[in-house]
């Protein structure tokens, strides 16, 4: 059962709340059956964007097109979108089962099919044993799964998911993420996916839209966003731990009106006394299990490096830093814009 995805186009969408601008002219086009991840700092307008697309709020300006048709004046119902609310918005007077069944029930889907689809989605999200509880008797993560399930039982043209997995544990999140990917592939519906989890954005999205202060900073494939960020902001925003953005002198490069960025995985830290490279001192060592994050201090700046799990050093220990100059990225200090050509060493 596959629904053809549709193209979702936003043109210069703007919205403010009582004078406070939440979106300042966002134009974005999401192709048929694609999944775009929307990321950005807290309060940048992601949820606002979704609620405009859903038709829950009217934009102050701009056009929303679904499948080529302007939907600005259509009600949410007519837009045929499913949405996961960041705050869940479960129906507290209904059991989990009835919450999940609700959109189908409203759409007049036959009872038998509703039951089947509810079971299916409940199994997918591990909600089967909870079907007869009310939301008040669920844990936070369980509620979030119900919220997600309520969107997933439907087969709408567009899915709008607002941080649907934020309260789930890593294992569950991984599982659900995989299921979402499968579902997306199977349904071919168009997804707009707001997330703070980079792994989600990178693995699920066809394209990532980086929002900053209500405006789009960059839209691109995950590789582009990570590998060729258009601005220092994007560079800093994606990647955990974040990119090291420092004055060139810190890395022993000639001064200039630019900052250079180096990903933590591209910075090598060596404790061997005689090793080549820039001298620095250990500031903090954070073992993460699979790897260790090492923060070093050099020329008054701090740099983070991802090292192997076994790395250990006391704070203050002298180390040597190495990196491949080709992996450096340069950004104008003033504007934050990427300096092109940026390939040469």
């Amino acid at each position, binding site marked *: 059962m596959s629904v053809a995805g549709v193209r979702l186009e936003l043109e210069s969408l703007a919205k403010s709340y*009582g004078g406070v601008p939440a979106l300042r002219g966002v134009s974005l086009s999401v192709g048929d059956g694609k999944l775009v991840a929307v990321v950005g700092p807290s309060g940048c307008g992601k949820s606002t964007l979704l*609620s405009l697309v859903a038709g829950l709020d009217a934009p102050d300006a701009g056009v929303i097109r679904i499948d080529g048709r302007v939907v600005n*004046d*259509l009600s949410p119902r*007519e837009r045929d979108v499913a949405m996961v609310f960041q705050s869940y918005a479960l129906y507290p007077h209904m059991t989990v089962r009835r919450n999940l069944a609700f959109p189908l029930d409203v759409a007049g889907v036959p009872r038998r099919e509703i039951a089947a689809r509810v079971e299916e989605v409940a199994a997918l999200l591990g909600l089967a044993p909870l079907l007869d509880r009310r939301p008040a008797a669920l844990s936070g993560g369980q509620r979030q799964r119900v919220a997600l399930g309520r969107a997933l039982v439907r087969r709408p043209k567009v899915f709008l998911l607002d941080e649907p997995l934020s309260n789930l544990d890593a294992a569950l999140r991984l599982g659900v993420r995989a299921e979402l990917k499968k579902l997306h592939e199977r349904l071919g519906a168009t997804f707009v996916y707001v997330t703070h989890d980079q792994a989600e954005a990178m693995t699920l999205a066809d394209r990532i839209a980086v929002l900053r202060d209500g405006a789009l900073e960059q839209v691109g494939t995950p590789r582009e966003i990570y590998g060729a960020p258009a601005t220092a902001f994007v560079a800093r925003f994606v990647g955990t731990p974040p990119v090291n953005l420092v004055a060139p002198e810190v890395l022993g490069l000639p001064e200039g009106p630019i900052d250079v960025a180096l990903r933590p995985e591209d910075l090598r830290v060596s404790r061997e006394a005689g090793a080549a490279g820039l001298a620095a001192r250990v500031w903090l060592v954070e073992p993460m299990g699979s790897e260790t994050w090492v923060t070093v201090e050099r020329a008054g700046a701090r740099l983070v490096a991802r090292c192997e799990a076994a790395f250990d050093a006391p704070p203050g220990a002298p180390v040597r830093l190495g990196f491949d100059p080709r992996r450096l990225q340069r950004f104008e200090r003033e504007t934050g814009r990427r300096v092109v050509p940026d390939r040469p060493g």
Partner: protein
Amino acid sequence: MSARGERRLGAALVAPAGAALALVALGPLLATAWLSLRHRVPVLGEDRFVGLANYGALAHDARFLGALANTAYFTALAVALELVLALPLALALHHAGRGRGGIRAAVLVPWILPTVVAAKLWALLLQPDLGLLARIWPDGAGAVLTRPRLALHAAIFVDVWKTTPFVALLLLAGLQAIPEDLARAARVDGASALRVFRSITLPLLRPAILLALLFRSLDAFRVFDVVFVLTEGGPGHTTEPLSLYAYRTLLRAGSFGLGAAISLVTFLCVVAIGLAWLSALGERRPAEAP
């Protein structure tokens, strides 16, 4: 449905209620307003336009001014007492675990009892000669009805007895809408039970309190039955409220123009009280988040 469509739907939903109000309430209002500008005493065959003369007459009418004062006093004291008494009661009803249904129903009975009966019951209990109270406490509370300065308090007392459940019920409905999480959070934040009440419950109860205040003070301002049964406005008009004065003027004395003017003044007072409450306690609600 577009925003416009939604607004049209909204108008359609509001229309029946608005029509019901206009049809049955607005007509009489206008009729009364018109009447108040006339001198009309059918039994004397009088009926002519006199402009604001009726109002002018009221301005110098000692009985009217007395009734106005009685009504205002009655309203202020009765509503204040009802609110003060109803709030703890509503909280208790809200928190009573087992047997909640029973106690809620029990508390409601005074209010369900027809006003005439309730007032007669109290008239009997307060009868200065034979009443239960007079027997227990002769010349004290038992004699209130005979004392011009106290009789109004008896009416207030009966009103409080009868109407506190109504206020408690309104407040209870408000209490039920307050999320429990907030009180929990406040307790973890170190607030005592009293502080939770003052800082969380009370502010969130404000709309319900406003509602209770509004409806009660407007209703109390039109008090009739209780006084009518208890004292008929006596002794010497000291307990006569505006509505009773209007009633007598309109129907007993048959002076329709003047009665209409009294009614209209009562009405205007009521409107003023309502506006005062709304502006004093009106909600300032923030815009809502996406």
